[in-house]
């Protein structure tokens, strides 16, 4: 468990106790509501987890760093953007993966593009996101994040 998750647990625990002391009824109602929100999301997520599990079994870090080499150029960047866009990975997983890729000789621009899309663009979740918000909202959020990744490539190419 990463440090931000631990903080989250502590904050929640404290708030839960405060809530309980202030109003027992309300707290139970809140916990029930939270559980319901969770149970509504899980059936949407489970098939996606299976699909992502398969993707991760096929697209291993070795596989990625072979293609994202320092002289992989434009094709490498394109590949980084596409593979990174498949699913979401939280930052505390993405950054170590990026470090590993850099150590394996992947190019900085390619790794940066991969990291940015990995965290912010999740095509696998498109249907779920569309259902919860709207198609337009899901497309818009992913496109904006993708543009962010493109900007990062540009900045990296200028800086490095």
């Amino acid at each position, binding site marked *: 468990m990463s440090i*931000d998750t631990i903080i989250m647990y502590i904050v*929640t625990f404290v708030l839960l106790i405060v809530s309980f002391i202030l109003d027992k009824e309300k707290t139970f109602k809140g*916990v029930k509501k939270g559980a319901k929100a969770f149970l509504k999301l899980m059936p949407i997520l489970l098939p996606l987890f299976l699909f992502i599990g398969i993707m*991760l079994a096929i697209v291993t870090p070795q596989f990625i760093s072979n293609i994202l080499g320092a002289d992989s150029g434009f094709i490498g960047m394109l590949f980084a953007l596409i593979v990174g866009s498949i699913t979401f990975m*939280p930052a505390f997983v993405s950054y170590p993966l990026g*470090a590993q890729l850099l150590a394996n000789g992947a190019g900085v621009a390619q790794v940066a593009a991969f990291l940015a899309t990995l965290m*912010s663009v999740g095509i696998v979740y498109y249907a779920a996101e569309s259902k919860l918000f709207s198609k337009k909202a899901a497309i818009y959020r992913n496109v*904006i994040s993708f543009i962010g990744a493109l900007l990062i490539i540009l900045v990296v190419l200028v800086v490095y």
Partner: protein
Amino acid sequence: MKNKFLVLSVIILVVYIFIDISVTIQAFKNTGNQLWSMLLIVPPIFLLIGLFDVWVPREKVILLMGENSGIKGMFLAFLLGALSAGPTMASFPVALIMLKKGAKYSNVLFFVMTWSTLKIPIIIFQVSQVGLTLTAIINISMLFVFIIGAIFAEKLFTSEEKQQFYQKAINYNKQ
């Protein structure tokens, strides 16, 4: 449509039994790991959603993050997103409760985007992994694009569409 990924997954899993069964086994392990980390990480998020729902009145959220909340609303959206922990998918139900309570769509969008990418609590960890320059480039570029994206969303989405977000949020959080 609904089970597209499930059908596709089962087909790939079966095909790989014949090509390389270790991939099939690894896929199941990965799925198990994801489930496990989801169950480990997300319970506090959903508890907070529940507590937020019962304790924070709609008027308060409208005041802090609603239509007229201005730059303060955006800043609050940023703080909430950046300080939260958990997979991006977990930010969606949080976004829905915010919408239900009357937060402005562009603020909610900014919150989700921030959640996905800009994690302040682990910024030192990020530097330790990929160095200060790359960490700064990623975080600053994304923040810049997210701000522009959120402001532009305010114009791109009609008030009718925003009303629909609100309706969906109410349905999701129905008793």
